């Protein structure tokens, strides 16, 4: 069996950044396994701009951002295999993969970095009886068809869900000559980034109807139209609010979900909220030496944060391989997300083991205006930061310092919550 110090599952931005930082830290035996025909992950189909402002101080498109990291991986001579699907990861870090040249093969890894990204939610989004005629696509599939295959799925479009991919595709299909009639969102707020509402919908006069859902689908072979209706606070359609739209295409953009079948198979403990692994300050799962980063850990909207997080995972994996990791001495502090804060990554911190500075990322469960993001060390409030608005569509963060944590030797719980001003 072949052996590597670090095996990275997935060659998207997370996998690439993890590989680069592990190599720079001094580990040479690294292998990236990617099932697609190229490195770069989902970015290859995200042809719009808005990537990399924080990492490169310039605004790049998805493929350009990916190309920068791919170049670093190639320049550093990091090994990778394409067209290679990872089938299984065992508890003792044997990775089973398959490709056409080698068939099924196994690799013994000292550490594994999970970087498999996420997939689109689709099942359950159309919670209505009736036919499923042709013309219904997930927004990401439509994005791949238009941008990579040069194929337009339809001419008259309705979008259900206001996730970023749906918003981006509203503009994209408009450019390609389609008429995007409406974006209907079940929730009273959008799941997408504000900038995408401004420059993908508002710029083109595409209406966004919040608290609306699809209640009827028409057409037998091919979609011919849909009906949307307003929903009440429990998400139930309000009779009398129905509106009909003729359309040949319905795109579903109802969110992303981390792709963790492999992680579960390996026995990695999962968070029911993020659907990603529970990790400590080193981005390490409950299995020692198995790390996670990027969209497989929790869904990100900013690739820059993915790269940053993945860089940390790569460094931590390298430190583990090189035996340089600080020892945890058993001390563990729990992060406690409450009152509007849905989860935190990481969920526990070993202060002895952490870097000098640690970024804790989280999402909120609702829209809050003029609020504070507050941090408590047990019962003592340590900081509060004023925010004009926080929303579920945008990831938030706080920073913790090792020095500070060490100066509280009895600290058990760090609470993060939203407080009204």
């Amino acid at each position, binding site marked *: 069996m072949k052996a590597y110090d670090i095996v990275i599952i997935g060659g998207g931005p997370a996998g690439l950044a993890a590989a680069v930082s592990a190599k720079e830290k001094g580990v040479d035996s690294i292998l990236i396994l990617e099932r697609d025909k190229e490195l770069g992950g989902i970015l290859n189909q995200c042809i*719009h701009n808005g990537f990399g402002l924080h990492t490169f101080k310039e605004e790049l498109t998805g493929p350009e951002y990916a190309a920068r990291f791919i170049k670093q991986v190639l320049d550093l001579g990091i090994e990778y295999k394409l067209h290679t699907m990872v089938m299984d990861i065992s508890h003792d870090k044997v990775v089973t993969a398959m490709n056409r040249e080698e068939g099924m093969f196994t690799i013994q890894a000292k550490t594994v970095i999970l970087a498999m990204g996420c997939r689109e939610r689709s099942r359950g989004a159309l919670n209505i009886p009736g036919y499923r005629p042709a013309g219904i696509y997930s927004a990401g599939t439509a994005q791949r068809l238009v941008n990579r295959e040069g194929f337009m799925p339809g001419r008259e479009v309705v979008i259900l869900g206001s996730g970023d991919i749906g918003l981006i595709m509203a503009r994209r299909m408009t450019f390609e000559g389609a008429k995007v009639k409406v974006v209907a969102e079940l929730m009273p707020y959008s799941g997408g980034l504000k*900038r995408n509402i401004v420059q993908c919908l508002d710029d083109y006069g595409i209406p966004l109807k919040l608290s609306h859902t699809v209640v009827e689908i028409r057409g037998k072979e091919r979609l011919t139209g849909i009906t949307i209706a307003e929903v009440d606070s429990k998400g139930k359609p309000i009779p009398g609010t129905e509106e009909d739209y003729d359309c040949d295409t319905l795109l579903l953009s109802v969110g992303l979900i981390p792709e963790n079948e492999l992680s579960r198979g390996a026995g990695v403990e999962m968070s029911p909220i993020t659907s990603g692994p529970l990790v400590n300050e080193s981005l390490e799962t409950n299995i020692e030496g198995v790390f996670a980063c990027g969209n497989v850990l929790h869904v990100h909207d900013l690739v820059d944060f993915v790269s940053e997080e993945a860089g940390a995972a790569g460094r931590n994996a390298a430190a583990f391989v090189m035996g340089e990791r600080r020892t945890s001495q058993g001390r563990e502090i729990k992060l406690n997300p409450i009152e509007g804060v849905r989860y935190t990554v990481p969920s526990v911190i070993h202060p002895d083991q952490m870097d000098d500075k640690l970024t804790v990322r989280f999402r909120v469960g609702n829209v809050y205006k003029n609020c504070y993001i507050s941090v408590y060390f047990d019962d003592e409030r340590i900081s509060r930061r004023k925010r004009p608005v926080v929303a579920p569509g945008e990831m938030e963060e706080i920073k913790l310092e090792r020095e500070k944590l060490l100066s509280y030797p009895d600290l058990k719980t760090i609470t993060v919550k939203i407080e009204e001003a």
Partner: protein
Amino acid sequence: MEKRELICIGCPLGCPVTVTIEEGQVVKVEGNTCKRGDDYARKEVTNPTRIVTSTVTVEGGKDVTVSVKTQSDVPKGKIFECVKALKGIVVKAPVHIGDVIVANAADTGVDIVATSNVDEK
């Protein structure tokens, strides 16, 4: 005095920015996190611009499309003319990031360039 609420589109953080305008002049920009937000807000109230991204067809390449963008932002009113300038364009592989696909698109003075690499088949 007029106040306008904008969302900065400089990056996906989407900061809420308030611009104060007095007698047609921007006198104050608040709420932005970085300098780009200030630039964006001033421009958005006077001369709004956008970067346009799309794809064109490739012949003889490993992929059938190549992604493109306007090298810098163009006036909002010119977006559709830029998109139109790309219709029907077919390029031959290989294509490299930065290759000019359409020079001076829609008379904006801005080139449309490739944003991905497509090798020959």
